[in-house]
């Protein structure tokens, strides 16, 4: 991938760091999305045609991806292109701010494409309409087949400039693809871009696979496989396709996740009716037992600094969330509300823990501070669980199952995402039914 995807960034003109008037506050639910005009990318007339794709089409496609990304945030309102007042080429040089403000645009994105010697050069600029200023201008050169990623990277740059937060568009989601009747589901590991495109299947469906999770560099995935009917934690290299068992203990290993430095896998090991939490160092293969309790201890997740672990245990009778130091000392229960709690996962920002809560027959996705205070339930449904954080800690992706009838009719499993403000709940369209999503970190940092 890296070999293929070589981007270099040039600053064209000056980088404008001056404070502008537009600032999107994403810490609150945004009921008044910022009107943004995303002009189609104008094509440099000196461009060659790329294979069968006309460069003009490529420009439209890139601008459509950017527009879709912004629409999906719920924070922006991309304006209808029919109302646009300036041609893309002129707008890119010097927009007439008064005209754009007439159509209520507060921000404007313009761009230019040049296709030369099998290389695609994409230039874009973000303009602050009310301040009559250019906010950012960047250019990327890449192979044309990477146009989609360029669109995501541009989206991230604009998002970062407008919100002050890291973007999350140039990311992927790994999940479990599900087909077939409920009693005989066929499950495969699948990976897609965060916008649902470029789906690839990583396993064939011959054995049951569950709970895939990325390592920090997004090259490795740890998951549970029932290969040869032995449920064990595995490691998969996405590039090479090589799989290896890492949790080959005399019993079931499950619920794996990487440590934030990617050097260890933390997981549950169940033997003789007791599940405890272990870590394995991937280099030395040294195994450490972290919890020792006769109850079920599972769903461990490291804090981003690696010093703490949150996990799920029923040691108090029913499932609750606990935290402890990474050596297993200082165990503290942090969930005390009505109902039972599961699948705690530490935010990449460190401040919050997302969880699944079950209360009175309903399933909730929620967040609480890492000391257990400030619990907020974001969404209620018949069944939903397994939240995973966007790399900027602003969104959660999870899966939701519907109620089924007598013979399983009406059953579905789908991926959903929600902003941690509780707004902008939406389905992530997948080719098949889907569950157990895990969000990658930013692919280009």
């Amino acid at each position, binding site marked *: 991938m890296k070999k293929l995807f070589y981007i270099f960034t040039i600053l064209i003109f000056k980088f404008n760091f001056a404070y502008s008037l537009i600032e999107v506050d994403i810490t609150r639910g945004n009921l008044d999305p910022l009107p943004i005009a995303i002009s189609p990318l104008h094509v440099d007339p000196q461009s060659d045609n790329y294979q069968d794709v006309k460069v003009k089409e490529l420009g439209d496609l890139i601008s459509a991806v950017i527009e879709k990304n912004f629409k999906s945030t719920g924070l922006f309102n991309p304006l209808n292109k029919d109302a646009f007042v300036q041609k893309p080429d002129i707008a890119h040089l010097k927009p007439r701010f008064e005209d754009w403000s007439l159509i209520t645009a507060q921000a404007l994105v313009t761009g230019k494409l040049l296709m030369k010697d099998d290389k695609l050069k994409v230039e874009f600029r973000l303009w602050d309409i009310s301040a009559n200023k250019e906010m950012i201008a960047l250019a990327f050169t890449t192979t044309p087949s990477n146009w989609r990623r360029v669109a995501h990277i541009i989206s991230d740059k604009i998002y970062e400039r407008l919100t002050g937060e890291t973007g999350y568009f140039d990311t992927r989601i790994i999940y479990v693809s599900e087909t077939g*009747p*409920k*009693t005989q*589901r066929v499950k495969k590991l699948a990976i897609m871009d965060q916008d649902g495109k470029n789906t690839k299947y990583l396993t064939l469906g011959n054995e*049951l696979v*569950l*709970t895939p999770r990325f390592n920090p560099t997004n090259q490795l995935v740890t998951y*549970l496989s029932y290969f040869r*009917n032995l*449920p064990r934690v595995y490691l998969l290299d996405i590039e090479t396709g090589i799989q290896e068992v890492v949790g080959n203990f005399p*019993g*079931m290993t*499950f*619920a794996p996740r990487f440590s934030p430095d990617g050097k260890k896998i933390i997981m*549950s090991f*169940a033997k*003789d*009716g*007791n*599940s405890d939490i272990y870590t394995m160092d991937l280099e030395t293969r040294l195994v450490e037992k972290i919890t020792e309790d*006769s*109850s*079920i201890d*599972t*769903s461990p997740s490291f804090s981003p600094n690696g010093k703490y672990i949150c996990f*799920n245990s*029923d040691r108090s*009778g*029913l*499932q609750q969330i606990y935290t402890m130091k990474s050596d297993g000392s200082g165990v503290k229960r942090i969930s005390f509300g009505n109902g*039972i709690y*599961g*699948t705690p996962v530490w935010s990449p920002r460190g401040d919050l823990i997302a969880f*699944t809560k*079950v209360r009175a*027959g309903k399933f909730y996705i929620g967040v609480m501070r890492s000391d257990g205070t400030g619990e907020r339930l974001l969404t209620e449904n*018949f*069944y939903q*669980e*397994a939240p995973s954080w966007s790399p900027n800690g602003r969104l959660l992706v999870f899966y939701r*199952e519907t*109620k*089924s*009838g*007598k*013979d*399983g009719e009406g*059953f579905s499993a789908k991926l959903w995402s929600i902003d941690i403000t509780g707004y902008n709940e939406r389905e992530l369209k997948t080719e098949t039914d889907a*569950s*157990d999503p895990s969000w990658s970190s930013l692919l280009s940092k």
Partner: protein
Amino acid sequence: MKFNKRITNLLIIFISALALSACATAKKPTSGVSTSGDVYTGTDTVKYLASGVKDRVFFATNRSTLTSASRDTLRKQADYLRKNKDLNVVLEGHADERGTREYNLALGEKRANTAKDYMMTYGISGKRISVISYGKEKPVNSASTPLAWSQNRRSVTVKVK
């Protein structure tokens, strides 16, 4: 209905008090949570290892304790294994769809091991019994109803060929 529930409750308490083993893993129920009212007692989904020897036992929501009926079934399975010395079995532990996937994997493992422990107290070598958990992955009844869930919370004894 209520009367029946009460009887079952009483029975469970009585049997639990008598049982020698397999109770070590049982937890005190938290107040307000029924621990025995939702155990499946029918035979709809049950298969037989041999005549009169049921292949499965059922559990209450979030629990892995054995009911008196389950103990009876497992004693009969143990008898059957004692008479068929060459036979080995796998105990497949399952959960219903109303829990998180990872917890259910652990719960299925615990349920199957509770059944295994009980059979071992009746003289069956642990070497003849292996255990696997499928969590909520392999329901027998795909409906989203309390009845279906009770049929899915199970440990099934399967002969190894």
